């Protein structure tokens, strides 16, 4: 019974094959809300990590540009954001080593995330506090960046950012496997 239902569903889907093409063309010219599209993290999860309701934008990757999801929580005191980028590369180890060079003075290994991952040195300058991590799953190199411009942000403290970027990395790497 279930089998025949599923087969019927499948036939209906085949008739609608043009629909994703149209949607795809639409997406190519206009960024979509991340809620339905971000393959690596849901908007609800991102909101939880940022500490409040966030909206997301997913931009598909190109040959030169990584795909990205950007979640933003805008408030009167400032803005918190979480950006995820993912790119499939031919030489993932080399690319990760390259990324490590831009990781500040004290990059640290992040264990049990993907094949390998690195905590970058946190940054606190120009009225912003940020935390970044880079890593890879097979040949997919990812970068995750938290930024808060909220002055003395009591939610995204330095310590909280460290914990949350680990959780975010686990989410992203988990979905990349």
């Amino acid at each position, binding site marked *: 019974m279930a*089998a025949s239902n599923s087969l019927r569903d499948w036939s209906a889907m085949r008739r609608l094959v043009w629909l994703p093409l149209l949607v795809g063309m639409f997406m190519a010219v206009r960024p979509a809300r991340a809620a339905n599209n971000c393959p690596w993290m849901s908007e609800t999860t991102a909101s939880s990590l940022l500490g409040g309701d966030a909206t997301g934008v997913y931009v598909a990757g190109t040959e030169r540009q990584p795909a990205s999801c950007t979640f933003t929580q805008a408030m009167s005191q400032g803005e918190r954001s979480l950006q995820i980028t993912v790119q499939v590369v031919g030489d993932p180890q080399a690319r990760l080593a390259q990324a490590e060079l831009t990781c500040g003075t004290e990059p640290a290994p992040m264990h049990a995330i993907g094949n390998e991952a690195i905590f970058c040195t946190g940054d606190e300058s120009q009225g912003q506090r940020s935390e970044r991590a880079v890593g890879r799953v097979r040949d997919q190199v990812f970068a995750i960046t938290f930024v808060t411009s909220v002055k003395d942000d009591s939610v995204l403290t330095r310590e909280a950012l460290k914990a949350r970027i680990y959780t975010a990395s686990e989410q992203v790497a988990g979905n990349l496997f």
Partner: protein
Amino acid sequence: MNRMKAKASVWLVLLLAAGLGTKPGVWAQQQQQNAAPLPTPPAYTPPPAGAAPAEDTPAQREALAAMKAKNEEKVEADRQAHNAKVTPAYNFHYGKKNPFLPGNVQVAGEQFLEPGAFPTAEYCAHCHQEAYTQWRQALHSNAFRTPFYRTSVNILIRDQTRGISFARHCDSCHNPIAVVGGGLTEDPKVDRSKIDSDGLTCMTCHSVVGIDSTNGNSSVKIGVPAVMVDEQGNRIPGEVPFQEILRHPERHSKAVMHDFLHTPEFCAACHKANLPATLNDYKFIRAFTAYDEWQQSKFSQRNPLTFYTTSFKPCQGCHMQRNPVTHIDYGAKEGTFASHRWLAGNTAVPFYYGYDEQLQKTIEFLRSGNYLNVDIFALRKQGEDKMIAPLGRASFSLAPSDVVETYVVIQNKNIGHSLIPEVRDLYEAWTEFTVKDAAGNEIYHSGYLKPDGMLEPRAHSFTNRPVTDEGDFVDNHKVWTIHSVAYDNTVQAGRSVLVRYQFRIPANITGPISVTAKVNYRHLRQSYLNNIFGKDHPAYPVVEIASRTRVLNIGENLPEAPDEADNPDWMRWNNLGIALLDQFQYAESVAAFTEVIKLRHDYVDAYTNVGLTEIVWEKYDSARTAIRRALTLDPNNARALYYDGLLQRRAGNTEQEISDFKRVVEMFPQSRDARRELGITYYQQNDEHNALEQFEALQRIDPDDLTAHYNLSILYRRMGRKDKAADQQAMFIDKKVDPGAPTYSLNFLRVHPEISTESIPWHMHSDPATSDGGVEHGGK
């Protein structure tokens, strides 16, 4: 080639000796990454043993009632709000009434449970630091997040014709809070950040309020989480202050420690799985069933037909042994606590996360318990019929250039389930067999790891090969594509397997040769690890579970004293007989069991073993003699009575047949075999009432028994119960093996000659490629 093999072996030894390849300092760091610091426990002085529960004052009663009302209101409001958010976007692929299919999990009430209603593991850790510390490193807490799981479930999620709603089948066990919270849908409104990391958290199992069936696929009912009940036994949802729990630990127990948690049926909820048509668009396929394997083992004491007997031991008896506590845990009894590490075979998860304590304990566990016995039992020289057996007892001589066949008997001695259990397409256990000269030079080697980490394909492995309808190996655990199994070389609990190796003694040999057989285990198969990480991952641990070495002289060999771990001679012969029976070598099997009789005239099972082999061999007259002898020695022996029942049926002695089976059922009311045969007997006698009773009882023991489905469908129809008849008929058709499925297996075996002999029970391992150790013919 030999050098490469040797290098692989050295690497293996180093890996084992070094504690598996990563620096301890790094492991310590990794642990810090994955474990939150333990919270400060609340002050607590346990009441004296046997003290009556504390009496509440009226004020305390009032306060508790107020807290209960407040918690109920909050939990209900949160649940409503959660459902208002989740339900509109949820993909009810299987209809509104089946939100969790293809998983079997159910919840109290009609709606999704709000994930925040589950008290966190950190909350529990205040008083249960031992349990928390162990759980964090154990498989249950890591049931979802590991790459080993994510890789396969992600394939299902990304599958164009299926998608995330189908993943409820897997996540019902691997991430049940995400499932019952409504998180498995294309546009989830559930925060996954915490629940994904915690997998099966404390309050997953401890919120289960009932076991729905032993069908598996998470066949439990999860209640609104509660850590305490009130004086009347009503559940108080949500977290409560620790002092309330500590004042009334008995009420805490009543909320979270249901009796069924101690039963194997609780484990069955997830350690039994099938692939339903709702997942694969094909039909029911049994995936794995550790629970049934246990039930059929000697440890359950429910099956009279086991080859050996022992005292009752449930799953928890091995996997949740009580150990002295090393952290504060208010649930400890006399300084011990039931292990929440659930030690078993998974070395991959602790290796990946750097949980070195869990890893070491897992390795110790695998090597403990006398789980396996490896017996280099016999030799047979080419051109000679005589078997030299049992080794260590028999005198014999060997000469240079002799071609020698070695019988290695591997007994699944004390595992309460098969070797390997569960997803044996991913796990890897195999026999490594080496022959070396006195200088340590390799003469013959089977079961080595190649330099790329892959197990050589001709090794004897205890794995299986599920295949698609194209006959392709399902390499990536895409279980929904499985249509058949090309071979399954698992060894069931209590049974033995005979692995035969043939090698040539070098012509120029001067000293003795040493022959070693080992059973190794790796979690997981190298090609699956490659699928997960690519090929550039560290080597995953290989654990030697059991081994045996014998030194053979060139020239005369005399009897020698047995090793401490060796089985007694009668058991060695018995195990050979069991192995030969399973390989359809009936004459040799009877001969082996007859050797047991020679050594133990009083051993009833030896006669029964001869009898049952002859029944299978269709030599009923001699079978009768053997079974009669068994029953003369022990007229109440259930095992002998069962086989006597079969023989009485054959002889047309229906009264005696019924009497035999009834006696077995009286002694073993949960014997599925006895119930089945008694049901058939009644059915053949047109005794529909009694037949129905037996088949219904059988179905309660094993809900998938085909004989029960088939006969119940007929019996119900005759009784006018058409709906029930139709249900049974449908289940019979769904669960019956597709008669076309073996074709898919043959497609696979045809294109994989290097492995196809593994599908033949009676096969030989030799190495025709090696000029020195190879033999002219008969090799695989």
